[in-house]
């Protein structure tokens, strides 16, 4: 079966971002960019399913500026077969991304769409669920285990109290949690091979999707700074401070 994997280009998770001085946006100039960690897990899961013989083709999709090609090439180096870039320099919100993905799903007809559960920049945790609504497919969000069984997939999900398992009819949507797998590193030969794999470019216009933003960011600012407190000498002093100064115990 065919699997579609969505990958996002984001500021690398090790970078501590700062808002611009005028508060209009986050400063991303000259900042290291990477594939979103949850998306990397999605690619890895698709590749593992291919290695098990369950999946025959993996299509990696990304949306945004021309530079998103780098993240698609990363996915190709990790084992995806071909890429699709939906190129636009306009701001893309999750609803618009889900609509573009829906258009691609209609065309490619994958049996499964795997996405990360959230991107580490917007922290929205929405796109997979919204694609589920638009396509009418079942959704297995926050997956820590995925098992395809005939025309259904069993997904173990991380929920607040522990784990929950649901069964979804295929085609279905899966969004990955951190514990689903440990992504591999791309080897140099695979990176070279990835350069020759096909990568098609399209646009929201060509897909017939209106990407007009529905929300407007009025301001971004740093959170209230927490001041470092005091170091205490020993446990006795700690207990004394918690009782008499902070009055929390």
């Amino acid at each position: 079966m065919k699997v579609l994997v969505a990958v996002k280009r984001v500021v690398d998770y090790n970078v501590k971002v700062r808002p611009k001085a005028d508060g209009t946006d986050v400063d991303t100039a000259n900042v290291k960019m990477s594939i979103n960690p949850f998306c990397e897990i999605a690619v890895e899961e698709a590749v593992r399913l291919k290695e098990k013989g369950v999946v025959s083709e993996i299509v990696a999709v990304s949306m945004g500026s021309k530079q998103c090609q780098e993240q698609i090439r990363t996915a190709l180096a990790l084992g995806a077969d071909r890429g699709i870039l939906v190129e636009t320099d306009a701001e893309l919100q999750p609803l618009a991304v889900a609509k573009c993905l829906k258009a691609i799903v209609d065309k490619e007809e994958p049996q499964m769409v795997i996405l990360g559960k959230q991107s580490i920049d917007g922290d929205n945790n929405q796109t997979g669920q919204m694609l589920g609504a638009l396509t009418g497919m079942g959704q297995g969000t926050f997956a820590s285990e995925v098992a395809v069984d005939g025309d259904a997939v069993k997904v173990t999900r991380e929920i607040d109290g522990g784990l929950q398992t649901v069964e979804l009819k295929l085609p279905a949507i899966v969004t990955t949690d951190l514990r689903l797998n440990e992504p591999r590193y791309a080897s140099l030969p695979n990176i070279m091979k990835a350069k020759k794999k096909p990568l098609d470019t399209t646009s929201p216009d060509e897909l017939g999707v209106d990407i007009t933003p529905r929300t407007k960011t009025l301001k971004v600012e740093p959170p209230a700074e927490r001041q470092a407190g005091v170091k205490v000498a020993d446990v006795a002093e700690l207990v004394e401070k918690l009782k008499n100064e902070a009055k929390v115990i």
Partner: protein
Amino acid sequence: MSILVIAEHDNAELKGATLNTIAAAKAVGGDIAVLVAGAGCAAVAEAAAKVDGVSKVLLADNAAYEHQLAENVAKLVADLGKDYSHILAPATTTGKNMLPRAAALLDVQPISDIVSVESADTFKRPIYAGNVIATVQSSDAVKVISVRTTGFDAVAAEGGSAAVESVGIADDAAVSSFVGEELAKSDRPELTAASVVISGGRGMQNGDNFEMLYKLADKLGAAVGASRAAVDAGFVPNDMQVGQTGKIVAPDLYIAVGISGAIQHLAGMKDSKVIVAINKDEEAPIFSVADYGLVADLFEAVPELEAKL
């Protein structure tokens, strides 16, 4: 303004997260209706009707909603919600799973994890693991919002007397089914609702050593959490994880034991009132946010702390 709040529950009791979400709804202002969707959940609807500030409770009691599968509940929420100006749900895993699906059915861009209400269409929410706070304004007709429960003080669970109305809709999308669940059992308070939280990190060295934290927690009536490092190392189950990808907590007292304080972890606990760090590495980043830091070997400090309480 009319607001629909989606209740968090387990068919038997109304969860505290609902009370924080109703507080956010009050900040928006307007009539507040609460939707209880489940199976055999009449007691939950009764509890919701008693909550301060609730004007109406909608009860959708049907087998299709028993495990609150997103496919079924989202359709219900979208059907009912189109007549409201706001739809709010707590940003729990249940809320995060269902709400964006309902929003897409309504052709609306949802707003996740708000920590404050600036006006009826403007909200603040953390992005980039809590390193940036964004103020966002929605132009959609229906505002679909998930609420970070630690951002709002819970409303009183008593004092209201709303009417309970039954909802006749029973949609089963029939694309998903519940297979089973495995819930971690604990007598301690729930992590996100506890007033004291003690968390252990990689410094705990193994799962058995968490026993020390449990003993301390029992003395303080605290919940026990963990860093991602401790979860990934298999010391404790992942529903104990505090952080960007785990639970967000904001207790009165947070005690971090053997936790270095990675950005990911800080995103889940830095709004705690008082933070205590116990770590033998005095350069650990956790000390830059801790109100009280103790540079010591946790294997000596924790039992001593327990003895002195």
